[in-house]
């Protein structure tokens, strides 16, 4: 392949309680697996919105092994975490783990399944399906991304208004 068309992320809701995120990357799946399971590599990419870092990343990628991620806001030091236990670890094709928020804002545990399939030479398609305890929790989890983005938007607006007033 000479022309490198960028891959895009697709989000679908296959059922009332699920969200599926699909994205391809240019790498063999063994390497993608490493990026998903190596505590030295995870904090380099799994960061969410700009302005957050991951000071704690613990992962035991074995069936029954636990993981814990903690994110911190550069701006005000706010922290939030995700933690869970691996249910299925099938190198290099599938990772299934439970997931709960710390502190538990959303009530309950979800199940996250990440599938890695080589769909072309050197191209891995990552399919992540999150199964939430209820539709309400799924909707709130998806909407919280929106609320966070808006919070940042409002903060920028406040800063702008303060500048104008000064």
């Amino acid at each position, binding site marked *: 392949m000479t022309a490198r068309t960028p891959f895009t992320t697709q*989000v679908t809701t296959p059922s009332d309680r699920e969200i599926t995120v699909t994205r391809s990357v240019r790498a063999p799946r063994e390497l993608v697996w490493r990026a998903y399971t190596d505590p030295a590599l995870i904090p380099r990419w799994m*960061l969410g*919105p*700009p302005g957050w870092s991951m000071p704690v990343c613990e992962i035991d990628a074995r069936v029954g092994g636990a993981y814990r991620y903690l994110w911190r806001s550069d701006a005000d030091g706010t922290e939030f975490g995700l933690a869970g236990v691996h249910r299925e670890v099938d190198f290099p094709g599938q990772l299934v783990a439970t997931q709960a928020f710390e502190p538990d804002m959303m009530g309950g545990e979800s199940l996250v399944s990440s599938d890695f399939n080589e769909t072309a030479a*050197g191209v891995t398609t990552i399919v992540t399906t999150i199964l939430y305890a209820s*539709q309400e929790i799924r909707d709130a989890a998806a909407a919280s991304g*929106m609320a966070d983005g808006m*919070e940042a938007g409002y903060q920028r607006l406040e800063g702008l208004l303060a500048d104008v007033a000064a």
Partner: protein
Amino acid sequence: MTPAARLDATFQALADPTRRAILARLATGEASVNDLAHPFAMSQPAISKHIKVLERAGLVTRGRDAQRRPVRIEAAPLAEANGWLEDYRRLWEANFQRLDALLEELQAVIPTRDKN
């Protein structure tokens, strides 16, 4: 309410951290005003005010039960506020773009079986 005014009301309602926390709590199930006031160390009237804002935006409804009038989350306006899946998608896309860069860097160091 026009769609634009509704969206505005939704955004205004979500701009407050207490109201977002109330919605997060309601995502786990309906609750009375009393239940909601408890974890926030706020008076009932203060919480009622927040609930009124959420109600006006259509984000919550109140039950008919005259005694408790339980508060319930309404997911539809959140979904309608069109950032719903799009902003969620963008969060993931930001992660994947960093993953792209990392994987490229790793492959520059480690020759892969697909390179020839």
